Structure formats: structure tokens, C-alpha cells
């Protein structure tokens, strides 16, 4: 299938290329030079239409955290995933130097239960439900802002928008005309570079970014990364109402894998590729009235091979065996969306989408066949303002997929603006998580060469749950939001109760003398707690605080081990603080603080003690003629080392410097 996938990719690229070259000819409109009444009465294309406007946190139908460019920059983070440490309740860790975990409860290596969209492209992989954070063809410099919904919102984003939605919005190319060059370096072997150029070509506003990233990862792990990516976006205004957006990206990477103490999964390299192409047509009739059609294709592959080290297990000599793991997956998605205002008090967004996921993973699925999964959706969401102080948000999504059939995910939220700056919101929503291909059809066995008697032995490791029910969540929340524009201060506190049923867990099978897992709908879990976030912006000083307290109650479980695993996967406290100050002389200083209480992540994780981490960043802005530049020094984890996800991931102090130039 992999060849087939590449052909598709090429085809899409060619199509996009064709559109680019043919529409370029249309050229720019002639510029009118003399002022006339047309300047006063002529139509102007609607730029800030409803889909482009940010919804203020106090108006959103769910708990939202917005991470803007300033926060990304001042945090000093180098990996996109790290940025989510600033979101209340979000657990971020490195499973290895090149594999990150971002989740919001029931923290585990693979299934983040969080939907991740990059400009509307869903980037979790169908196989593991995992987000290839390290392989996303995306530079932090190209991100405009990230909107994180802390809770389910399947009515808007569909299944798998289970415990959260991460919506990454990149910058409009017109915002970044000119060139940017940024380099980053530090020990050990950390060397990154990003180059970007933005401009106008014919009627197109475009941006092209290339980047490189490399490091040696953790000391005790074979987890080096060497990543190269290219990404581009072109926006074309067809006429006053219609715009076309084309985006594409490609990453080629080498990731270190395996363990120094393993005889089978010996240290080796994995070749990783990740790419996407997106076409987005937008027709805007008015500020509240628009239509969009989107098509995208994503592709992910990973290839690795090892020759195991001979060893003796229970008196049986296991000989050197050549093992390979090839993973290919791709997604085609087509979506139609319509935003409308039906009356002054009521606006709606509705639409439909269709998706095709294809996975080929001979080692994990024990078949060389390609698994195909189809998904159809219809959704409707409304915002109704029955009175000036009240906002009712409601909606539902109907879905049909090949794995679990048909389901409906509804949502309702009620906001009351008690007084200017004071809002109370109550909400209830239901969402589902479709089992991943691995959870449903996994069949992982290792066939090893055996010395006595000569031959091979096949050892099963885990098996999918065939016919699993989807996980379901009913989330209830009550929030109070405060906002003072005069003092640049905002804060919100959210009480929540999330009841998850049919939680899918790998369950070890009794009677088997080693770890053999089978995926089951093995537990019902209630998570409840309080999440708080606060922002303060006073001139040159900015402060952002987050804290989450979570209590996990296992209502029922397949066996006590399952109950214990789930219970321990949730730290009871997660918190962060980020403060930055801009001094008049072009100096910017910031300090970040992050803490996670004791926990034991599921899926190759280990028990971890409570940790505190302090980061610091010092930057200096300078000018060389008309060019603007910045040098920065970042120190991560200033004090004692702590462990990320596993105890062989010892996070010691790291220091790196960056230099960026804009011209």
C-alpha cells in the first residue's frame, strides 16, 4: 500500500500545483489611484468573518485556554507539545526524546483522548490515536495561537474530541512578509534551524518554511532525533467573496528507538515520514454568513528493523532474529461547513464530512492487508442569545463509522453574564471515543529463531478487542469567569465531573507467564475536580497561572490491577506559572514554573514522584539597520533533575541559545 499512498500524495501535489499555476495568471487587481466616492461606498471583502474571529473565553461554550505567540515565545519551549504544560490539567511528558505525550486525564503513551487540529487538519494517527508531535511539519514561529478546549466537544469536533481539543492556528501569510532566519544551539548536540520566506506572487500571499531539528535526547535512552521539514501555505483571493487556501507540509525524520537493556528491541533507528496537503475554499457572504469546503490528506509512515541479540529465556536459547516494523497510515477527509445567522439572536453552524482512514501495519496487526475505516458525520451547532445577558450554546453531531456504528454526541451550555466581566456557565456534553485500529484489531506477535529444538517460536504480546464498544463520556461543568479589561486581568475556575464508561484498557491475561495484553472495555471512571487559570497583563509584564486538582474514582473495573493503573495515571495536582517582563532596553526576561504530583502513566510508563521544574529565558532585541534580530538564552529545569514518563528519562538542566533575524 505504501506505494499507493505515495501516488496519491503526488497526485494531490500535482493538483495543487496546477491550481497554483493556473490561478496565478489571474493576477492582482489594478490599484485605483485617485480617491473617489467608491472609497466610501465600494464593497470591501469581509475579512473578519465569524470563522476568523476569536471567541472570547467568557463567550465560549466550554472551558478554553488560549495560548498566544507571546506565551509560546516567552516560555522558551522548543517542542510544540511542551506548550501544553501551560493548560490547566494537561499532562505533558516525553516518552522519549523524540516522542511526546499530551493528554488530559487517564494519561498514557498512546491514546491522548485529545483531538488535535492543525488549521483544521486532524493529525492524530488512526493506528495508535497518537499525535506525531515531533514529526509535525510545523515551526513554532508560524503559529498564531492555540485554542485548547479542556473537555469534550464532540458536537463541534466529532468523536475523539473526548477529553479535550487542541486547535492550532497558523499565521496568515500576509502577516509575515519578508524573511526570517533562526538558529538554536546547545549541548548535547542540540542544533535547530528555521528559515522562512513570505511574500506575494500574483494574487497569492504565500509562506514557505523549512526547518531542521536535532538532539541526542535523554542520556540513558536511544532517542536521538534528526528531523527536516518543509511547509508552505498560499492564500489566494479569487474575488471579493471567495478565497482559496492551499497548505502542504512534509517531514522526514530519523528517530532513535529501542532500549539498551533489551535483547529484542535493541537500540536502532526508525525512519519516519509525515506529510499533509490541504485545500480550503471559503466563500463569505457577510460577517455571519459563510460557506467553506475543505479537503485534506495526511500520511504517516515509520520503518524500523532490528536484529535481536541472542539470549537465553527459561533455558531456551533464543537466536539472533531479524525483525521489522513497517507502519503506513493515511487519511482523506472532505468537509462542508456553513455558518449562518438565522435571526439577530440566533446563529448556527452546520455541515457534514466524510473520512477515509487506511492503515497498514504487518507487525501490529499481523496482516499485510490494509485496514480501511470510513467515517461520515453531520453536525449542527447553534448560539442563541435570548436576552442580552444570556447565551445558550447547543449542538449535536451524528456519526457513523465502520468500527462501532452510529452514534450521537450532543452538547448544551448556558452562560449568564451577571455583570460586566462576571460570567457563570453551566454545561453538559457527551462524547465518544472510537477504538483505535490497534485497540480493535491489534495482533502483535514476535516470531523469534530458537536454538533447541531448531526452529521458530511465536510469542503473542497483545491482541485487539474485536467488537469493542466506544468509550463514552458525559461531562458536566460549572464555571465562573472574571474579566477586567481596565486591569488586564482575567481568571476562571471550573468545577467538573466527567463520567467515562467503557474505558478501553490493555488488560494482562491471567495464567500467561509473561505480559500478554488484550484490549477490553474494562472500567468506568469518574474524574472530578477544579481547574483554575488566570492571566494578568500590565503593560510590559505578563503573568499566566494554571492549576488543576483532579480526583479519580474508579466506579467499576475488570480487575483490581486495571483499577489501580487507571487510578494512578492521573496526578492529583498539575500546575504552571509563566511570568515575563519586557524592559525598555529591548531585554525580555521570563520565568516558567511547572509541577506535577506523583503518578504512574499507563503504557510503558513508570511510577514518578512529584516534581517541580523551573525554566528561565533571557532575550535581547536588536536592530541592524532596518533588520530586526533577537538573541535569547533558555535554561530548562534550573534545579534538581526529575523524570519524564519513565525513570530512565532523567531531565537534567538544559541550556540553549537562539538567534533570529528578520529581514
Amino acid at each position, binding site marked *: 500500500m505504501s506505494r499507493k499512498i505515495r501516488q496519491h500524495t503526488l497526485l494531490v501535489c500535482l493538483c495543487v500545483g496546477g491550481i497554483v499555476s493556473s490561478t496565478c495568471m489571474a493576477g492582482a487587481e489594478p490599484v485605483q489611484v485617485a480617491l473617489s466616492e467608491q472609497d466610501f*461606498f465600494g464593497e470591501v471583502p469581509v475579512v473578519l468573518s465569524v470563522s476568523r474571529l476569536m471567541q472570547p473565553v467568557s463567550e465560549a461554550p466550554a472551558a478554553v485556554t488560549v495560548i498566544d505567540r507571546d506565551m509560546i515565545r516567552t516560555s522558551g519551549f522548543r517542542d510544540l507539545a511542551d506548550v501544553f504544560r501551560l493548560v490547566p490539567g494537561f499532562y505533558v511528558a516525553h516518552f522519549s526524546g523524540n516522542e511526546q505525550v499530551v493528554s488530559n486525564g487517564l494519561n498514557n503513551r498512546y491514546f491522548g483522548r485529545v483531538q488535535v487540529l492543525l488549521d483544521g487538519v486532524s493529525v492524530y494517527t488512526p493506528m495508535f490515536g497518537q499525535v506525531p508531535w515531533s514529526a509535525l511539519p510545523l515551526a513554532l514561529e508560524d503559529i498564531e495561537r492555540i485554542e485548547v478546549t479542556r473537555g469534550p466537544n464532540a458536537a463541534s469536533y466529532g468523536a475523539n474530541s473526548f477529553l479535550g481539543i487542541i486547535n492550532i492556528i497558523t499565521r496568515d501569510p500576509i502577516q509575515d512578509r519578508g524573511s526570517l532566519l533562526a538558529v538554536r544551539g546547545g549541548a548535547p548536540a542540540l542544533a535547530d534551524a528555521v528559515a522562512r520566506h513570505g511574500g506575494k506572487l500574483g494574487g497569492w*500571499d504565500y509562506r514557505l518554511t523549512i526547518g531542521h531539528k536535532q538532539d541526542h535526547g535523554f542520556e540513558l535512552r536511544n532517542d536521538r532525533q534528526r528531523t527536516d521539514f518543509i511547509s508552505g501555505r498560499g492564500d489566494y483571493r479569487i474575488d471579493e467573496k471567495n478565497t482559496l487556501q492551499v497548505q502542504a507540509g512534509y517531514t522526514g525524520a530519523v528517530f532513535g528507538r529501542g532500549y539498551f537493556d533489551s535483547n529484542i528491541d535493541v537500540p536502532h533507528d526508525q525512519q519516519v515520514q509525515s506529510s499533509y496537503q490541504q485545500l480550503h475554499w471559503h466563500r463569505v457572504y457577510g460577517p455571519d454568513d459563510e460557506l467553506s469546503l475543505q479537503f485534506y490528506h495526511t500520511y504517516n509512515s515509520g520503518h524500523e528493523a532490528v536484529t535481536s541479540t541472542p539470549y537465553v529465556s527459561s533455558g531456551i536459547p533464543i537466536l539472533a532474529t531479524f525483525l521489522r516494523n513497517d507502519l503506513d497510515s493515511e487519511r482523506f477527509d472532505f468537509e462542508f461547513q456553513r455558518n449562518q445567522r438565522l435571526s439577530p439572536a440566533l446563529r448556527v453552524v452546520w455541515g457534514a464530512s466524510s473520512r477515509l482512514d487506511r492503515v497498514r501495519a504487518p507487525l501490529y496487526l499481523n496482516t499485510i492487508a490494509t485496514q480501511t475505516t470510513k467515517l461520515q458525520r453531520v453536525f449542527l451547532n447553534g448560539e442563541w442569545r435570548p436576552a442580552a445577558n444570556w447565551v445558550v450554546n447547543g449542538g449535536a453531531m451524528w456519526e457513523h463509522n465502520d468500527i462501532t456504528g452510529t452514534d450521537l454526541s450532543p452538547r448544551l451550555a448556558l452562560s449568564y453574564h451577571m455583570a460586566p466581566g462576571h460570567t457563570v456557565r453551566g454545561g453538559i456534553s457527551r462524547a465518544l471515543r472510537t477504538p483505535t485500529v490497534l485497540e480493535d484489531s491489534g495482533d502483535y506477535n514476535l516470531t523469534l529463531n530458537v536454538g533447541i529444538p531448531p526452529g521458530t517460536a511465536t510469542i503473542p504480546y497483545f491482541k485487539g478487542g474485536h467488537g469493542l464498544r466506544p468509550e463514552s463520556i458525559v461531562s458536566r461543568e460549572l464555571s465562573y469567569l472574571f474579566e477586567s479589561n481596565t486591569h488586564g486581568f482575567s481568571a476562571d475556575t471550573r468545577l467538573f465531573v466527567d463520567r467515562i464508561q467503557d474505558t478501553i484498557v490493555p488488560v494482562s491475561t491471567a495464567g500467561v507467564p509473561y505480559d500478554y495484553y488484550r484490549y477490553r472495555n474494562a472500567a468506568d471512571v469518574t474524574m472530578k475536580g477544579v481547574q483554575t487559570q488566570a492571566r494578568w497583563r500590565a503593560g510590559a509584564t505578563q503573568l499566566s497561572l494554571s492549576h488543576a486538582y483532579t480526583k479519580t474514582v474508579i466506579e467499576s473495573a475488570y480487575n483490581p490491577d486495571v483499577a489501580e493503573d487507571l487510578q494512578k495515571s492521573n496526578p492529583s495536582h498539575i500546575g504552571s506559572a509563566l511570568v515575563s517582563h519586557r524592559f525598555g532596553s529591548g531585554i525580555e526576561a521570563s520565568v516558567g514554573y511547572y509541577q506535577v504530583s506523583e503518578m504512574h502513566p499507563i503504557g510503558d510508563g513508570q511510577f514518578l514522584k512529584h516534581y517541580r521544574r523551573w525554566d528561565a529565558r533571557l532575550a535581547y532585541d536588536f536592530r541592524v539597520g532596518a533588520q530586526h534580530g533577537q538573541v535569547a538564552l533558555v535554561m530548562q529545569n534550573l534545579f534538581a533533575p526529575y523524570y519524564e514518563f519513565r525513570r530512565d528519562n532523567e531531565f537534567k538542566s538544559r541550556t540553549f541559545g537562539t538567534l533570529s533575524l528578520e529581514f
Partner: protein
Amino acid sequence: MQATLALVLCWGMGMAYGQTQILLVLSDSGGACSEVVAAMRGHFAGQNGAFEVRSIHASEFSAGRVDPTETDLIVAIGTDAMEQVSVEARVPVLNILVPRQRYESSRLRAKHDSRQYSAIYLDQPLSRQLQLIKAALPKRDAVGVLLGPASQDRLKPLQQAAREQKLGVSVEQVITEEDILPALKRLFVNAEVLLALPDPLIFNKSTAQSLLLTSYRAQIPLIAYSKSYVSAGALAAVYSTPTQIGQQAAELLLRLAQAKTLLLPPPQYPKYFSVNVNYQVARSLGLAIEDEAALLQRIKAGTERE
């Protein structure tokens, strides 16, 4: 086809003696021009025919379809009409629906005496635009303005008006389209609100997107001069509709008729105006803006105080 557009509008046919012959010259057969004509006609209808009014398209005027000397006064509606009429006519001309800057350059070419060539501008006075900022955004007093070739003569009046309103103003000059974004970024260092002044180099269909997006991303609201910009994403605008301009023109003509004179008053700014707010944008920027009627009252009150 244009011949059919040469509508002849006559009022008070029975009172031919003493009637003032007025010729309306239209830049455009539809849109804003026809709204102006409709407003004027409506206003005259109740006035027992002081005038005999005819209207004609600018192209027909320049083709010599009418003899300008047969009329007492020409009302040129729009810039095209102004350009045609200023060359030809020897009778008094009132220009309406024209930007101030265009009027002033046509004034230099026209051979009329000062009391025979005048205008009602389409632009709002700077003080009124600044009043809108004060009314809508009372906590923001650092105003940023981009000036281009068509608006650079506004620098001094702008600084003067800002001083009077106790607002701070920072200005960036723009010469080519490429200057706009860098100039905007420099403005945003200090400015808390961006005031748009009409200038086709800076504000046009192809620059609207980058201007509105860049200012929105910087959380700087844009105060514009037309309703279209408010729909497009500006926070608010003060502007006059064609109907309001038509009403002012009709009133001006009636005053002339009552005074039995054809001597025109000096050029004037619009007397009637409207305020339009994009509440969606306001909400998104976290701004609580009063309703449009209240803003209009505040601006009127503020202007009267001066």
C-alpha cells in the same frame, strides 16, 4: 441607453416664473448617486416647487447633450460628474458626494468665482472621527494613523484636532503599498486604536485583508470611514449615507431659494451622519461598546460643545 436615463424631473410646472433651473449631473446611473437624487427629490416634493430639476448622466453632459447656460445651478454628484462639470460649466456648481481632497484639486482647475463653486464633502471632519474614538473607546487615547499620498495633507489638521480632543496621535507615512505593513507594526508599538482616513493606496480591496487582520491580531481596533469596512471587520465607523448627503444638499438649495440668491456657501462637511459598530468584532476583542444610538448622541453632543 444613456438617453433613457436622462430623466427629467419637474416640480411645480405651474409656477414656471421665478423657478430656479437646477441640473443634477450624475457620475453613475445607480448606487449612491441615485440614492442622493431620490433623497433630494423627496425633500423637494414637500416644498411646492421652488425648483425645476433635471438630471443627466455625466457622460451625456460631456457629450454636450444639454446647454449648461440654460440652467441656473448645477449639482454635480460624485467625482466623475465633478471632473466633467468643472471643465465645462460657467454656472454655479455645487459638488456633492465627493471626497474633500478631490474637491480641492478640482477647485484649483475650475474657473469659477469662490461663491460659485462649492461642495458638501463626503469625508467626516477629523474632530467627529476622533469623537467616535472617545465615545466608543473612552480608555484608549493613543491613536495611530497611516497617511498616504491622498491623505498626507491631513497631518497638521489631525495633530490640531487630536490636541483639541486631548488624544495622542502617532502617524506613519506610507508611499508604496509595501510600506503599509512595516508602518503598521511601528504604529502598534504605541497606538491603542487605529484611525483609517480614506486613501486609495492604503485602504483598498486588496489591502483591506492585511490591514484588518494585522490590526485584529494585534488586538488594535480599527475605526473606519465607511459602513463596508465595518462589515469587513473594522470596529466602528462614522459616515454619511447618500440619503443624508442628499438631504443636506436639498436643504442648502432651499435656503438659497428662500434667500433668492445663487451665491454658494463655502465647502462644508456632512451635517447628518450615522454610526455603525461591528459588535461581533467588539466582543471578540473584549470591548464593551455602547449601542449605536448612544454613540451618535455622544458625538453630536461632543461636536456641539466645541
